């Protein structure tokens, strides 16, 4: 039986932009539009566990040989390819044989997003996608196209911004709850939360 990875690669054709890794580290980089279909197909092919949905913020890409603005002498240790856009969404899937207690295959599906617009939700495939998508929204501000009223999961509702974005100020403190009763939370100023080149702020 051929692997989910190879089957998907053959079926999706040009929607697979690249592939890397082997075995448990297999990764397919997909066109963002092909992701919902690819997830459904992967589940049909046996990926019964959605391990994680996460996101990577590539805001500050530095070409090799040039240090970062704050550390001019700190060279990247290897040349990283310039990211096509700011946010990369990662779905980690697993084909688990529960009867044998064995992992048959692990596969990660990645896609680069246009701004902060994410694909449609995977809730109908794996129920745990609900919380994982809420976490990605909470931490990175990625919007899933069919969840306009998505709620935060880790931070409280009055929190402003998305703390794992690279442009969220690391020392930023927001008003405490429970003490300033009735006081509206202060919004981040433009200076504190600079507009990101790749994405629109919520």
């Amino acid at each position: 039986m051929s692997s989910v990875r190879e089957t998907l690669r053959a079926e999706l054709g040009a929607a697979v932009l690249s592939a890397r890794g082997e075995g448990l580290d297999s990764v397919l980089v997909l066109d963002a539009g092909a992701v919902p279909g690819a997830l459904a197909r992967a589940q049909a092919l046996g990926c019964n566990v959605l391990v994680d949905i996460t996101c990577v913020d590539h805001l500050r890409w530095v070409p090799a040989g040039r240090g970062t603005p704050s550390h001019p002498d700190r060279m990247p240790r290897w040349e990283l390819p310039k990211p096509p856009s700011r946010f990369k969404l990662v779905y980690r899937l697993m084909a688990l044989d529960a009867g044998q207690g064995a992992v048959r295959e692990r596969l990660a599906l990645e896609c680069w997003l246009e701004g902060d617009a994410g694909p449609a939700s995977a809730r109908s495939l794996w129920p745990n996608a609900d919380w994982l998508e809420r976490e990605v929204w909470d931490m990175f501000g990625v919007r899933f196209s069919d969840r306009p009223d998505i709620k935060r999961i880790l931070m409280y509702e009055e929190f402003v911004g998305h703390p794992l974005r690279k442009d969220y100020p690391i020392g930023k403190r927001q008003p405490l709850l429970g003490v300033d009763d009735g006081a509206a939370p202060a919004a981040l100023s433009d200076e504190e939360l600079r507009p990101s080149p790749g994405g629109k702020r919520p």
Partner: protein
Amino acid sequence: MDVVDSELLPGVITTRIDDAVGWARKYSIFTYPFVTACCGMEFMSTACSHYDLDRFGAAFPRFSPRQADVLMVVGTISHKMAPVLRRIYEQMASPKWVVAFGVCTCTGGFYDNYATVQGIDKIVPVDVYIPGCPPRPEAVLKGLMLLQEKIRKQGWKGQ
């Protein structure tokens, strides 16, 4: 506590109500353990027989804030947890005291980030700070004795 043997009635002692109440309260601390993180392990080890919080009359945890005298805040408090802690404190009946157990509750510790309250004294008044990551049982006992001393001195009027 100043105790004077009565000259009139044998077996009767006289003292001031302030001293008597302070002394009684100091040895009948009911704690509410608000345990959120790894410091809880150290709290358990202190509370168990090896270090024996019962010697101080403080071994009886009450998991209802209405019945507790001392709020033991043990572990990191996130901003999302902060209103809960505040409400627990407000539900406790006076007189009440608060112990910040571990460096995360004292100052936020190394969780200097968006998610963590930088010291619970931003939410509730704190009587005793016990630093350490986690504090050793000896430090906890020292903190408890300091709290007892504070309770004794406050006497009748409470805080």
